[in-house]
């Protein structure tokens, strides 16, 4: 079992790195397609080797550190961001698992009974990476970006929590495994929680600092925000972490609202346990792919919010709506169960 977990951890780590790498290519490709262009298509067939070229370029760039920067914090910033981005993947159930020589292997690194809380804790630590990075750079733009990031992430985390509470109320468990198994087949949470889903989605975008909430790093005002002073692989870590965050949050959205690895007709007798296991994982990645695409789709459609609009939306609109959603869910549970 230990060996299996090790294999799982390593493969998830490599997979998320690989996916993050190729997300950069897809992002640029998709951006191009949305703007009637082709996007990068020179490195290898169809631009397949573009991420390698980009990574190589970042490695060979000068490692610049501002003279007055706090050296320790300056390095800690991107490392922390990267670490936190990878941590959440531990609790996501990646598939219904396969049975091999009589033992059933469930594709989840750690089924902790406070899974949702754990993910929240980790995401909250994520803000420190940005804050520390922006502070250590000793640059006004970086600091402004960091301040924006911290206040934005803290405000939206609250709403995110409120929208998830509805799910927890329905399932009666904080474990992600329980939440997924409760959505067996086509009994997905989205059918009961459409409003909660919308709130969660909005908050996820704000948490990932993605457009239309990418105020911490907006190029036009802050010249990159918290990563203005970063170069070489440290900048690479920040950018990479953003894509890993996108990947993980897509996985979380799929798990919480779209049934994770569950798919219709998974109970049909034609499918063996192992077949369901493999198809389930595949289906989960299909869902993740769709949400990844949605991230990019929205980025290349919507303009950035103004800062006061962002705060108004978070505090004055989403939180009341989330609370109402919670109350409605409670009423529904009381009446129907």
């Amino acid at each position, binding site marked *: 079992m230990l060996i299996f977990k090790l294999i799982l951890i390593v493969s998830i780590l490599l997979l998320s790195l690989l996916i993050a790498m190729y997300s950069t290519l897809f992002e640029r490709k998709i951006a191009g397609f949305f703007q009637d*262009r*082709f996007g990068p298509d020179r490195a290898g067939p169809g631009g397949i080797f573009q991420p390698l070229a980009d990574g190589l370029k970042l490695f060979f760039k000068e490692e610049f550190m501002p003279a007055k920067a706090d050296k320790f914090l300056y390095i800690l910033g991107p490392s922390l961001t990267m670490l936190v981005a990878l941590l959440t993947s531990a609790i996501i159930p990646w598939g219904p698992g396969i049975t091999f020589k009589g033992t059933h292997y469930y594709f989840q690194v750690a089924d902790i009974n406070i899974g949702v809380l754990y993910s929240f804790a980790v995401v909250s630590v994520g803000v420190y990476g940005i804050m520390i990075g922006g502070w250590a750079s000793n640059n006004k733009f970086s600091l402004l970006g960091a301040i924006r990031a911290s206040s934005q992430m803290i405000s939206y985390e609250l709403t995110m929590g409120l929208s998830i509470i509805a799910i927890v109320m329905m399932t009666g468990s904080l474990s992600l495994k329980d939440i997924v198994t409760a959505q067996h087949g086509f009994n997905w949470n989205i059918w009961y929680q459409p409003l909660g889903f919308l709130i969660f989605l909005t908050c996820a975008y704000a948490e990932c600092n993605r457009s239309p909430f990418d105020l911490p790093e907006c190029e036009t005002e802050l010249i990159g925000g918290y990563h203005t002073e970063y170069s070489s692989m440290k900048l690479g870590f920040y950018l990479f972490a953003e894509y890993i965050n996108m990947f993980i949050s897509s996985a979380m959205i799929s798990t919480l609202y779209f049934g994770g690895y569950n798919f219709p007709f998974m109970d049909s007798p034609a499918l063996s346990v192992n077949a369901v296991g493999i198809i389930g994982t595949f289906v989960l990645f299909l869902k993740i792919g769709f949400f990844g695409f949605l991230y990019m*789709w929205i980025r*290349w459609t919507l303009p950035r919010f103004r800062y006061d609009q962002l705060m108004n939306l978070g505090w004055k609109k989403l939180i009341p709506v989330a609370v109402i959603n919670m109350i409605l869910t409670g009423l529904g549970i009381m009446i129907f169960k």
Partner: protein
Amino acid sequence: MIPLTNRSKTVSNKKMTFAERLYLPGIVSGMFITLKHFFRKKTTIKYPEKKREFAEIYRGRHVLKRDDEGRERCTACGLCALACPAEAITMVAEERKPGEEHLYREEKYAKIYEIDMLRCIFCGLCEEACPKEAIFLTKETVISGFHRDVFIYGKDRLVESADPDKRIDITKRLTPEVIEFKKDKKQRHNRK
């Protein structure tokens, strides 16, 4: 206030409707607009493999024409240099020696004829000014270089080859006006 143009719009500060304040319908319709572009034909031209066609009457780098017998048409009258708004053309005239009739069409020719391609604005006025139909603009572009001197084109690069197969076709540049002008009896000497 008197409007300066008839394009001014009155701005209203009306309150947004509920649907507008919700943003969602707007976001969804916006997403469908971008999705439409996603599947649209791309406007990119993949450059090194595919080159954009130039117009037939494109005004690129110049050529100094020869006549049908391979003699240089230019007589170094200086009208092109005079017409040039960018003052890109310089020339030194020389008298034709006996025995050089097969090289130069008129009794006078340009010993040095230089165009500074960095000054040239490719307006085509030199072509228009030329009474001998000696200078024309072509479809070719001026290739880039690392030093300024490479952009000063002398006769070695401007005069077309005497080889009949390597002549540069400028018939496309002959607009109806030019053809009409050529019918003038006074221009008969230019026919060939």
